[in-house]
Each structure stands twice: as structure tokens, then as C-alpha cells.
């Protein structure tokens, strides 16, 4: 009866959201496609168990992400990971039933908790610096780094997936705020410095 292909990205306030372009024509902001997301807590001793259950490797380095065709895993805390998979298959909630015995493992389906924006282009880093206090220069924030941080008054996970490409993961109800904030920042002529 229900349409299961329902676009899980949309919230009411983002219905009108289309790709934003900066005046330079080179930098764009767009909504990412729907994804499966799994919030993972896992002690080091259980990393292999979780990786096996998930079918994805967990990154070794803190604040880094692995990126494969089958999905990606961001290590955003010593024991804390966020797995993301596109296209969504809507079955990660089944992993919640997996038994890991006496180990510290917590798997929770949060596919719908987050929404993601993709920022693309040579001015993307400067755009991010309008709201995020982290150092987004090389080498402080190299490609592959992922970090839980702030954008304006909202918590985000910032993930650099390419030299000029960034992903912002944000809780669903904060997404319109982030979109508005980025739109406002696009009007700041400071974002014209094009890095190499």
C-alpha cells in the first residue's frame, strides 16, 4: 500500500531544494541520494566481528573514512563509526538483532536520522569556512578525513571525499537550516578565492 521507494531524503522544507550554484559557476551544493546509515559503537576487540557482520572494513585511523563501492564507514570517535551505503537497500535494521555476546557493540539503524549535502567545486572549502570552525586547509583536513563538528548552530559530520568535494551529514530537522545558511554564505563575495 505504501510507496517504499519514497524519497527518504526529503523533508517538507527541502521540497523546493534544487542544486545551488555559486556565482562562480564552479561550486555547487546538492542533496545526496537516499542512503542506509548505521550508527556503530564498537570496542576495538569487536572490530572484526562488526566488519564481518557489516561486510565493510572499519577504518583504523580516527577521523577518517573508508570509501568502497559497497559502502563507506567513517570513524568519528575512538569507538564510534557511521556506516553509509548508497543506493539504500533498507535492511540494516536487521543488523540490530545480531548477537555479539559480551562485547561492547551497538548497531542502530539511523538511515532516516541524517540527510547529506554534497559540496563540489574549488570554492567548497571556503564555503564551509563560513560556518565551520575547523581548519579545512590541506594538510589539516586531507581527502578522506571525516570529523564531527559544527556548522553555525548545528552539529554536522564533515567528510572530505575529494580535493574539491565535501559531504556534510546532518540530522534531518537541521537540514533546512544548513541549506539556508549555505545559501546565505553563497552571497558573501569572499568566496571567490579559488584554491589550486
Amino acid at each position: 500500500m505504501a510507496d517504499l521507494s519514497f524519497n527518504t531524503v526529503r523533508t517538507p522544507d527541502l521540497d523546493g531544494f534544487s542544486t545551488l550554484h555559486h556565482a562562480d559557476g564552479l561550486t555547487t551544493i546538492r542533496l545526496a541520494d537516499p542512503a542506509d546509515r548505521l550508527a556503530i559503537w564498537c570496542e576495538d576487540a569487536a572490530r572484526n566481528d562488526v566488519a564481518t557482520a557489516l561486510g565493510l572494513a572499519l577504518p583504523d585511523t580516527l577521523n577518517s573514512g573508508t570509501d568502497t563501492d559497497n559502502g563507506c564507514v567513517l570513524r568519528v570517535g575512538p569507538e564510534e563509526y557511521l556506516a553509509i551505503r548508497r543506493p539504500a537497500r533498507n535492511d540494516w535494521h536487521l543488523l540490530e538483532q545480531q548477537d555479539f555476546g559480551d562485547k561492547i557493540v551497538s548497531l542502530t539503524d539511523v538511515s532516516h536520522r541524517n540527510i547529506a549535502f554534497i559540496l563540489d567545486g574549488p570554492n567548497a572549502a571556503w564555503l564551509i569556512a563560513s560556518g565551520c570552525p575547523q581548519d579545512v586547509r590541506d594538510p589539516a583536513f586531507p581527502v578522506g578525513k571525516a570529523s564531527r563538528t559544527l556548522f553555525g548552530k548545528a552539529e554536522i559530520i564533515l567528510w572530505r571525499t575529494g580535493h574539491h568535494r565535501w559531504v556534510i551529514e546532518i540530522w534531518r530537522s537541521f537540514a533546512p537550516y544548513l541549506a539556508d545558511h549555505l545559501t546565505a554564505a553563497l552571497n558573501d563575495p569572499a568566496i571567490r578565492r579559488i584554491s589550486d
Partner: protein
Amino acid sequence: MSDFRIPGRGMVDPGQPCTLVFDGKRYDGLAGDSVASALLANGVHLVGRSYKYHRPRGILSAGSEEPNALIAQDRGDGRFDPNSRATMQELYDGLECQSQNRFPSLAHDIGAINDLAAPLFSAGFYYKTFMWPKSAWRKLYEPVIRRMAGLGKAPDAPDPDHYSTRYHHCDVLIAGGGVAGLASALAAADSGADVVLCDEHAVWGGSLCGNQTDIIDGLSAQDWIAGTIADLQSRANVLLLPRTTCYAYYAQNYLGLCERLSDHVRHPDTTTPRQRLWQIRARRVILATGALERPLVFPGNDRPGVMLASAARICLDRYGVLVGRKIVIFAAEDSAYGTALELASVGAKVTIVDLRPETAIAPDPLHACRKADIPVLAGHVMTGTKGRLRITQASICAHQDGVFGPERHLACDAMLMAGGWTPTLHLYSQSRGKVVWDPERKIFIPGPPVQDEQSVGAARGTLGLQDTLAESFAAGLASGRAAIGGRKGRKRVIIATETAERGTGFLGAVPLPHAKIHARAFVDFQHDVTSKDIKLAVREGFHSIEHVKRYTTTGMATDQGKTSNMHGLAIAAHQLGKDIPAVGLTTFRQPYTPVTFGALVGYHQDALFDPRRKTPTHDRAVALGAVFEPVGLWLRALYFPKGTETRHQAVHRECLATRQSVGLFDASTLGKIEIVGPDAATFMELLYTNPWQKLPVGRCRYGVMLREDGFVFDDGVVARLAPNRFHVTTTTGGAPRVLAHMEDYLQTEFPHLKLRLTSTTEQWATLAINGPRARDVVAKIVDDIDVSAHALPHMAARCGHVLGGIPARLFRISFTGETGFEINVPAAYGAALWDALMLAGAEFGITPYGTETMHVLRAEKGYIITGQDTDGTVTPIDAGLGWAIGKAKRDFVGKRSLARPDIIATERRKHLVGLKTLDPMIVLQEGAQIVLDPNQPIPMTMSGHVTSAYHSPVLGRSIALALVENGHNRMGETVFIPMPDTVIRAEICSTVFYDPTGERLNG
């Protein structure tokens, strides 16, 4: 061309005339002028009235330290700025501004009567005078003083401008774009470091901007500066920020900068920001903030036409403006001699009056001046000035060792003061550095660095140009290399020569013959503090400089005493017979100069003030015409009016519909936390008062959470989904702090427990279906969950599917006292679930209801709302939740506090009780105070207050919840609620007003 413009001088553009309108009068200026320089070019010195005495005041400086020349600027459409410094405001064509603090006009100001009454207005005047009668303070003294006092008018319309904020990280941040800053930037850039160089002015070069006589590296200072800027601009690793004030130095090399983007533009693009706030984290900081020239403290030193020598020099070099034709320079150090030569070279008639004996004057500049026919009167002191709205005469007399010669008078149209140079230590001091007194140069200089910074040039007391360049190059190179750990760059050696080097100058009030010591010599121009005021404060017992400052208000105006603090300190020290460092220095605080609120707010205005969180079914509520209320950051539907219904009518209908058939409520905003791990139940036992170990999988329990002090912190229903998995719900507003509270205990008190916490608030859309027909509705949309009363009793929890395959968590719980279900589906399916329930419930007249109806229905059942019926001082026993405490539990957060004597003495505590007004139609006011005896004398003993009060449609009367002293033992007693016009009587009763046996709940 204006009278005082010198063709061929300055960095203004003669090809671009600009009109200035000041107090309604038009003046001609040029592009590149400041408002102040344009006025001076037209011979206008009188620009304002002082704060206290309303004395005529002129332009003192050429920079941001300006105390006098404050203007109000109206750029239209609500763009109104009071207290702009005319010396900093760049001129654009058609700029309109007004003087402040005068009525009816600048030349004729009735407030100047204060000046005649000056003997009355001594230091501490307000504290001494307006004390009696006490009642007059509020109604008479304060309003009148407030109207007269203050600087400028506050804008009265919303600011239509945009402001932007940027975070930035760099290797070397250099504050100050004078020669020291430029040299530092060059060397730091050589090292390969990322460099940011900022300066508050629009042009670079600081005090040497436009200077054509000092020589750097074989070029005039002006040309060297231009070449250096071109060099820096060409480098990819240098960010130049002109018009940018570094106003704050915080911890760990975190600095605040405010950039003015369009304040100098006549028709700015209104879609782009007006100002931009930079928050910069720098690996190394170089403070090249220069020095501020001090005035000299002598009688009549505040008359229009009396200004700083450096200001006159900048007017000539940068703006091509001569500040007067007949100029007297009152000097206490040598750099004024260079200025004298420059002024004379363009035709001014200059006389130098030097406080020092001739032997103390550097011979070369002295010689050069005499050779240029500039009279130098060494060993003379200024004893007074004349001229009503502009100086016309200076009075001087010779002095030596306390012996004074006869007074002489010099006609003049401008007087320059060269009192010496005070290093600009503000940012260093803000970095928590401790300044050090240098007795040789009689200045405070930066002490050891506390953060990764260093000061260069005049900011650290270096006087000569050559020394400044040398140390700046060295500092830039060292800072750049240290920041990036490299060896790139080279040592630069540059030769520089200047006409006259800066000297140490003079501190305090100048010596005066006895007949003159009662004349007013101003220390703080903006707050009208004289040397006498400071001496009086010391005599009256204020011996700390912090107390002197607050008593006299010296240094407390918008300029923060930039030109006055050192003199004030020196006068106080002299009066106390102490050394200056023994008296101390007041603290430098952020910001260095005023920052607009707009810049500080940045993007966070209007829609971006705070995130406005909306639930997944928000648009469904909008479509039904719901009225919303903010709850924390969330917007929640308050009620759903139909047609012309009032709020009361809508709530009445929603309540009855839910009690009689079925209601639909959006509960998505409730906080949700997933607690997972082998020790999840153990952790739950510790965080909640209730027992959890034996709660079966598939069951829910209402949980109460306490703080360490035993008071109720939050509550909510918790479902056990698996032996090691709990689905916790919290109040809407409590979601973040409950998660933080749990994390805190997990990480600090119970780190051995094996479980982890995940916020799932936004994963789920949650809809509550309540009412006698709720089951009929829910049964239609579930796929694989048996919702019959037998299979799904009250407080059961099931995972399954709804709507043909959507995973769901379904709880049989109720916050209304009716048969109730809460269905959680992944957020994006929330709207589909809403639509399906509305369709399925149509035959039963399903009624969406808002938070107000939810409040009424729960109050009818005596269900509390934490934060409304509790206030952080209510124990579970007080709240009637003693049943929720696991008596057999060994420990939980707050357990020990519940054994405290004051908590056990239950008859002395306030208990949550029900109240029924004797008149059933009167709804009490929430927050109203309760007394036991209405006839007791005022002030009465307050014995409690109303926490919740509503009209109950199903009961046809009002109900209320209240915290009343010993209320549990007062059932049936009458209490009194005094209101402004009446006293309401109410009877204490049970908190459960409706269906006390719970038949409906379990049906």
C-alpha cells in the same frame, strides 16, 4: 578647491570630488578623504560637544583612538550608526552625517550651561548629589540624567543589512599594516607560511602612510609601502585584509577581526554583507599595532583646533590637508620636529613650544627647524588657550625648576600636541600578557609572551624606523619558520632614515604657575575628566587606579581611554607619591574598538537565528491550518482550529473527540535514545529510579530520572526491545540534556559497563493514536502485529511492519488515559503514516490534536510534565511518583539524596496535588501563589503555587495541579489563591480527575 587642501600632496584623488553633508551643510571633499579630513580641508574643526560639560570639541586624532569627532550617520532604510568616528569613516559622494550631543545646534548648545556650572560637577558628582530624597531618583533624577547623558542616539529601526562570518586558519597573523606589519608580512611570506595581514585603515602604512621624507631602502616611505603591498598581493600565501580591525585576542591564538566591506560605498549591493567577522586561529601572531600619540594635559587643551601632531602629519601626508595656517606645536619629544618641517614646507607658519630644555632636544631636528625659520621656544609650558569655537591664541611661559616666567600669547589657528608615544598594548594584554614598565622610556611595554605571539615596532616600544624594520623582518621570518617548521626565507637588511626619531615624551599634567593650577586641563576628552578630577578622587581616598577609573569615569567612554589612560595614571601616581607601576594599569578588554552587533551576530539573524526544527508530518499539520508553538528548537502544532474556531473552542473539540472516539497526535519531537549492550539493563537501573532487570522484552515502563540531588530531572516511557536493547523516550526539551547526562555517567561513573548510547530522535516519526476507537484505526494499518487487547495489553511493545512493509515499532502506551498507541516509523514515512491513519480513522471522525489538548488530557489524568509540574526542587515522592522508585534497588543516581533529612521530613515539603476551584468555571492562572489563610497580614506566607490549570471539557469544570506545602496530607482542605481583584478558593484533591480506576486505559 577647499581652503586647506595642498595640491600634489596626499593619497586623495583630485579627479574624484565627493560631497559631504555635515549638519545639513555641504562641503567639498575628495575620494580618499575621511569625513574628518574633508572637514579639515574646509577649515572645520568644531565637530562635536563633549559628554558632560557640552564643551565645543574638535578633531583630535587621525585614527580610531579619536575621542571627540563622533558623528551619527544615516545611510537610509534604517541604516543608522551613532558614534562613528569621523577620522575612520571614509568619505563617499553624498555622505550625510550629523554631530551629536548638542541642541539646538553645534555652535549654540544649551547643554553648555553645564560648562558654566562645572565647579558643581566634580568627580563623583552623581554619587554625591542625587542621593536625596530617595524617591526622586527613579522618577526625576534618573530620567533626566539619562536624557542628558549618553553619546548619540540608538537606532530605532531594524538593521536591514547582512553580515557574514568566516572561520580562518593561518600560520602567521599580523595585526597592524604599518611599516612593522608590512616588513613582518614580507619576511613571514618568504618562509612559505600562510600569512594574514590586517589593518583597520583602508590604506597601508600606518603613521608613514603617504610619507615622502623618510627613506626606506632608498625609496620614500610612501613608495616603499606601495612596492611592498604590490609584492604581498602577488603572493598566493598572503591574505591582505584592509579595513579590518583585529579587535580581540582570545585563548590559544584565537583572534577576532571585523572587516568593513561596504561602509565606504555610497550604494552598496544590499545582497552582499556589510561587514564580515573573521574568527582566526593562527599558529603564530605578530602584533604590529604601533603606538598612539598622547596629548598633553594643560589648561584649555580641549579647544577645537588643538590636535595631535601625528594627526596633522597624517592629514598632510595621507589627505593633502593642512590643519591650519598658523600652527603652534607644543612638543615634549622630537618627532614633532619632523612634522613641523613638513608643515612649514607647504606654507604653514609654525612655532614650536617645547616643554623640554634645549639641551634635551635632539640637535639635528632642532637645527633643521631653526634653519627653516621655525621658532623653537624650548623650556616653555602651555598655560592656556583662547577662542570660543576654535583656538585663536595660545598662552605660554618659560619655566625652569619650578620657576615660571611671564605669560606670553601667540596667535594661532591650530595647535598640535606631541606628548610622546604610548605603545598599543591592547591585544597583547588581551592575550593575558603582563605589561612591564620601562623606566627609561617611561612606557609600558609587552612582557614575556603568554601565547605564541610577539610584538614588533612601536607596539613594543621601539622608537626608530631602522630598528623597527630590523626587528620586524626578524620576527616575521622566525614566526613563519616556526609555524610551518621550515627553513625557507632569507634575512633582509634594509637601511632606513627619518627626519626626527620619536622620543619618550611626557606623562601627567604639565607643570603650571600657581595662578593656573585651578584651570581645567583635560585628561579624558570624551568623558570630560580633568586632572583636577583625578587629584580629587585620590584625595577622597581612591588609591587604586581601578577605583579612580570608576569614580572619575576616566577611560570609560567608547574610546576606552586610548589617549588618556597614561596621563590619568601618571597624575594619580604623582598625587599618591608612588611610582607608576606601583599604581598599576587598568585591564585592556575586548573589543579594541567598538564592533557592530550586526557583525557579532553574523548569519544568525532572522530565519538563521536558530535552527527551526520541524517534524516529518509538519506540512500535514500546516495543511490542516494548525497553529504552532515553539518547544525548544522544535515547532509543534498547538491546536488545529476548524473554520472560525477560537483556541478554546478548538481545544474543547479536540479533547472531547479524543475521549469519545479517536485523536491523532504528532509525538515525533520526543527525545529517543537507543541503549544497547550486555549491561544495558544494569545501566538503566542506575540512571532511573525504577527497576528494569526484570522488565520482559516486549514491555514498556514509565521511568523517572533524578539528578544527584534527588530531584526529578526527566521522565518518559522506555521499551525493552531485546535483552540488551532499550528504546528510551525523553521529554521534547530534555532530549539533549538527558543524552548528555547519560553519557556523563557512563563515561565518568560507570565506565566499566558494557553499553553504548545512540540518539534516534530523528530516525523515527512518532504518531500517537488515542481514544476508545484507537484500536480500530491502528488495526487497519498494521501488517504483522496483533493489536487486540489480549495480544497487546497496555504497556506492550512490538516491532513489526505497517502500511505494507514499512518497519515500525509499535507501543501500547497512553498519555491521555485512553487506549493509546504510539507508532514509530522511519522519519521519511511519517507523512505516509499520517495519511494512512487519517484515512483509516475517517469513519470514526479521527481528530488531529495539538499540544494544548495533550496537556489538558494528561492533566485530567494527573500525568505530570517535568519542567512544568516540577521545577528542579521536586522529588519523586513530592510529585506522587514514589511508586516508581525501586525500593529493593541497591543504588541509582539520586538515591542517597532521597535519604537526606530535609527530603524525608515530608510534611515540610511541597507536594503535587490536584486543585478544584469552588467555582468550577474559574480556571486558575498557572504560576499563581497559594496561601492557607487569606486574612493573614501582608506579606503573606506563600504555601505553594499552581503548576497547571485548564478547563476540562469532559468534566465540564476547571482543574489544576499545584505544589502545596504538605499537600498530600491536606486532602479536602480549602486553600486560597489571591489575585489582583479577588481571592479564589479551591479544594485540594487527588491529581487524578478523570477515570481514577483506569478502566479506559486498559480497555
